[in-house]
């Protein structure tokens, strides 16, 4: 265990278990640092990072930016609105132009699945995937797993439930890969119309009865309904969805077990999760956000070590 086995972070799929453990171990160090009064270290002072956001983001963008600043990296930000993308420039051209200004690392969010893999094959730079369409969101999965381990310890043989819009969620796929690599059993739950047909090929159990699924779980990750990615309607009404798959305090209390509640944000309060649950002690939603900065610092530190 010394270096990451990869030169880019494109998805959890490409990482192995010792990569995950190295990232978590390094995050421990950075978590201590971001809780200091002076939260900055000079490690990446000679590294320049471009943040390319072709899709909206609050948390991830801020979290990456803070992580970069805490590491003393130089950063440039780019968002597709107000850029030359609207003039017809291709992704490869845009990125190569940015790289000619001597940028060492690219953090990219893109609405198209596979955009970061495509980019890594076509440009010579270190790419970090900050979410590519419905495909993967590796840093989110890493911070989810890290936060959960912090709370309940080793995930080996633990049962983790992912609920909601499995079909359109990149968090779901990255989460499945991450938890499985750490030895946990993953169950997905939601309306049949939002669960991809081939999901069982990933060795994931499918359960449509939310209460039954909760009973067997140590932790539950509640996903948001990705309205922006839906081309037609997948369930009759929000009200019906909430009745079947919304997490309420009475549902949680009716199960005789302390279940950790996670949410990748942004929360639609009253839809997938009630305010009461989101603000309860069982929820680790804000811990997830805090750990996100430490995880991203660790990833950029470890990848920067491999820059030529």
């Amino acid at each position, binding site marked *: 265990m*010394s*270096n*990451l086995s990869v030169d880019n972070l494109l998805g959890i799929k490409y990482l192995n278990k010792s990569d995950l453990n190295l990232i978590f*171990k*390094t995050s*421990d*160090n950075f978590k*201590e*640092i971001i809780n*200091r*009064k*002076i*939260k*900055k*270290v*000079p*490690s990446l002072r*000679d*590294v320049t990072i471009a943040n390319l956001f072709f899709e909206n983001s609050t948390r991830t963008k801020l979290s990456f930016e803070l992580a970069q600043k805490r*590491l003393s990296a130089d950063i440039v930000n780019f968002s597709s609105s107000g850029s030359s993308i609207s003039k017809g420039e291709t992704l490869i051209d845009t990125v190569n132009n940015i790289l000619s200004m001597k940028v060492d690392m690219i953090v990219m969010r893109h609405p198209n699945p596979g955009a970061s893999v495509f980019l890594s094959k076509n440009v010579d730079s270190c790419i970090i995937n900050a979410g590519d369409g419905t495909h993967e969101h590796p840093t989110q999965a890493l911070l989810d797993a890290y936060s959960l381990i912090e709370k309940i310890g080793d995930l080996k043989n633990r049962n983790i439930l992912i609920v909601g819009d499995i079909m359109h969620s990149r968090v779901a796929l990255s989460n499945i890969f991450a938890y499985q690599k750490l030895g946990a059993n993953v169950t997905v739950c939601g309306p049949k119309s939002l669960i991809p047909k081939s999901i069982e090929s990933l060795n994931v159990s499918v359960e449509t009865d939310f209460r039954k699924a909760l009973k067997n779980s140590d932790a539950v990750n509640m996903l948001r309904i990705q309205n922006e990615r839906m081309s037609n309607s997948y369930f009759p009404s929000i009200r019906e969805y909430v009745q079947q798959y919304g997490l309420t305090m009475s549902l949680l209390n009716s199960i005789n077990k302390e279940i950790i509640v996670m949410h990748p944000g942004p929360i639609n309060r009253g839809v997938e999760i009630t305010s009461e649950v989101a603000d309860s002690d069982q929820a680790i939603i804000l811990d997830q956000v805090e750990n996100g900065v430490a995880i991203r610092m660790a990833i950029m*530190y*470890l990848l*920067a*070590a*491999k*820059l030529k």
Partner: protein
Amino acid sequence: MKPKKILNANEISTILHRLSFQLIEDHNLFNDTVLIAIQPRGGLLAKRISNLINKHEINNNLKLGFLDITFFRDDFRRSEKVLKASATEIDFTIENKTVVLVDDVLFTGRSIRAALNAIQSFGRPKAIQLLTLIDRRFSRELPIQPDYCGTQVDSRLNEKVIVNWDENDGEDSVYLYKNKK
């Protein structure tokens, strides 16, 4: 080639006692002095010294912290391996205190340079001093000298000095290795 033993357990014990008494003499009661060990190799040395001081000091005031300097080093991205960090534990303030940095071997001085930067994240100390068990004189790359020194060793750049501790390695000893990477 066989490594050369520089210090045995008895000699180390004598040196540790001398260093503790020097600290007691200079830092009356340790009200305004703290020990900060540089991770990972300074930790055990600092624990030994603080135990000895606590044995002789009437009020057990001595505070001991551990500082990791990995993210402040100047050789990141210049060596093949990624630098792995250890834990930092400083649960007291160093503002206006005299900080005695503790490390086992002083070589080029670059670790101490990193430690001087790293310590600033925890406040502005009144003064910073340096204690090392081994001073590899003539191999310094920065203008840094110890205030408290166990013993001086003359060595070449391609040699390596290894300090073993009973707690980790089964014996207290210091060896000089030739041509060790």
